[in-house]
């Protein structure tokens, strides 16, 4: 097959890149400390040497029955992966390597132990992937299978591709922007950027100098616009040409501009479907679709959450999903919105949380500004709590599937799940809740190599018991 060999030299570049990225926080730390500047000279050299050693010590070979990978500089490791065990192949390819047919290959095995699940070949030629496909039990490239006389249209069962407008909306509605904004403010403060900018704007807005607010507003707006552009660029690079294709029982997700990524998901591995909507996307009527899969134990405690559709109009989502997955509902399942009592209970919980923090702080300081700062917290608690109560509800949408919805931090999440994927179900209630005829529903689902316990709280007892009864009597 393939004799023992090193990765394509490009892997060296990738390794160096990773090392630099990992050590960047340390470098930044030294920058801020403004000491030990010699680090600037020594560190890159050390990193490059280490990358070379790592590259030299990494070899792979393909025998008749298995893939053997040797790795490790100090602690050597040899992995044997029989072709039969390969469950999934992920491909990533930089656009400038396409003519050479070199790509990054991530081999998923079915192993349950940590560190056993995944092997990454940073840079190998197409040939490797084709050989692995040919030999594995679940061929991912159906073009390799003996061709049956089938028409082109029938072969491609369904395809969904994202347009530019949707990607732009996805970038704009990304709440990361808030965090980044704060980060920029903190950084610019530290580097004295604010002083420089206000000095520059001094000359421009000389006559409104005493309105200190104006230059600051200008700067803030510039920062926000800048962040939006940066986010848009990031999203475009990562999700350009996002396409989902279904063929038989396999979903293929392709995306990327500079670095193309291809992911194959067997429909059998899907445990549940999440249709999520943060508050920004809700305003535009958009949702995100994500899947929970059974793991191949990848990294230690990771959930295996795959984004099936980054953003799609909420009017289209169910009809599009139906093309890919047979068991999703034809249209949005009717889930009752929570009543005022449910909302009140969540608001009450949020206020208790705020109250505890407030009392703790009050021990140290309870002057005028304390009460001023408390107001927005209370308002936020009420809004968050009411939103969560409004969007908590459960329903069954066909004989074997549930639609469960709740919210967290102004993001609502509808979960579609079938009886067979539910590991166990519980109903609980405090004594007070028993009196007020409320109950919680808890559904355990697998995600990655963890279990997700989904809780739907403070729902009317009758609704919860109906679903619980269905679960116990299902045949």
């Amino acid at each position, binding site marked *: 097959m393939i004799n023992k060999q090193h990765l394509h030299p490009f892997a060296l570049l990738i390794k160096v890149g990773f090392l630099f990225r990992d050590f960047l926080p340390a470098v930044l730390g030294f920058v801020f400390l403004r000491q030990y500047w010699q680090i600037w000279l020594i560190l890159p050299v050390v990193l490059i040497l280490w990358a070379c050693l790592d590259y030299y010590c990494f070899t792979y070979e393909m025998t008749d029955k298995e893939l053997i990978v040797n790795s490790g500089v100090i602690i050597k490791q040899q992995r044997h992966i029989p072709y039969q065990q390969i469950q999934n192949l992920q491909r990533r390819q930089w656009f400038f390597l396409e003519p050479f047919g070199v790509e990054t290959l991530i081999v998923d095995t079915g192993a349950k132990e940590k560190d056993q699940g995944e092997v990454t070949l940073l840079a190998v030629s197409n040939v490797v992937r084709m050989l692995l496909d040919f030999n594995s039990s679940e061929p991912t490239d159906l073009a390799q299978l003996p061709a049956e006389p089938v028409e082109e249209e029938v072969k491609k069962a369904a395809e969904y591709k994202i347009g530019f407008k949707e990607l732009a909306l996805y970038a704009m509605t990304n709440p990361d922007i808030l965090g980044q904004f704060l980060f920029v403010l903190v950084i610019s403060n530290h580097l004295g950027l604010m002083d420089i900018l206000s000095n520059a704007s001094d000359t421009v807005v000389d006559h409104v100098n005493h309105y200190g607010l104006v230059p600051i507003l200008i700067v803030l707006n510039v920062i926000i616009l800048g962040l939006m552009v940066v986010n848009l660029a990031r999203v475009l690079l990562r999700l350009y040409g996002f396409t989902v294709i279904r063929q038989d029982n396999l979903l293929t997700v392709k995306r990327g501009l500079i670095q193309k990524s291809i992911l194959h998901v067997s429909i059998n591995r899907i445990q549940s479907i999440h249709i999520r909507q943060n508050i920004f996307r809700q305003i535009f009527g958009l949702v995100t679709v994500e899947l929970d899969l059974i793991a191949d134990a990848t990294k230690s405690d990771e959930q295996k959450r795959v984004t099936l559709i980054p953003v799609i109009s909420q009017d289209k989502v169910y009809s599009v999903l139906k093309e890919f997955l047979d068991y999703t509902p034809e249209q949005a399942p009717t889930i009752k919105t929570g009543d005022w009592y449910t909302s009140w209970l969540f608001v009450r919980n949020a206020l208790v949380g705020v109250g505890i923090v407030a009392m703790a702080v009050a021990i140290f300081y309870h002057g005028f500004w304390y009460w001023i700062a408390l107001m927005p917290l209370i308002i936020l608690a009420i809004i968050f709590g009411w939103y969560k109560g409004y969007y908590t509800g459960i329903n069954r949408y066909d004989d074997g599937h549930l639609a469960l919805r709740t919210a967290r931090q102004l993001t609502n999440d509808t979960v579609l799940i079938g009886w067979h994927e539910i590991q166990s179900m519980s109903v609980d209630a405090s*004594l007070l809740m028993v009196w007020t005829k409320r109950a919680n529903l808890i559904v355990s689902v697998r995600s990655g190599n963890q279990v997700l316990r989904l809780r739907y709280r403070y729902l009317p007892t009758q609704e919860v018991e109906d679903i619980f009864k269905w679960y*116990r009597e299902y045949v």
Partner: protein
Amino acid sequence: MQHLPKSIKRIWFMMSIIHLIVNLLILGAYLLAQHLWWPWLPDWGIVFWVVLSLVIFVVELALIPYRYAVYQYAVYPTEVEIKKGFFWRRFSAIPIARVQNVDLQQGPLLRFQQLYRITVATGGSNHTIEALSHEQALTLKDQVMTLAREARNDQ
């Protein structure tokens, strides 16, 4: 549905006593600290703590029969059901086909009464039955594992 063995009530009683002792020890440590190192620690907490500990102790004792009455479990051909809790009630259902393992454990208190804690493990979630006699535990384990194996063979 079956109840836990009666001897669990004795265990709960002992646990309540242990809680009370621990609370009193904490109180003792607090008094000691106040006396020896930090005289500025307030006094008002002490009476409050003593009263609270005694109240909790009495309430826990009074609740034992209720806890016992509410705690039940059942093994059906299709699922395992567990019902527990008085102030916080939980009713769980685990389809037999999802059960992967049934574990038996014994802490020092349980060992004293020859009882075992059962854990029914599924693909991810774990459900416990607080205490069963050795015989009950083995019966349950055999029953559940046999049914689980059959269910998987059928599938």
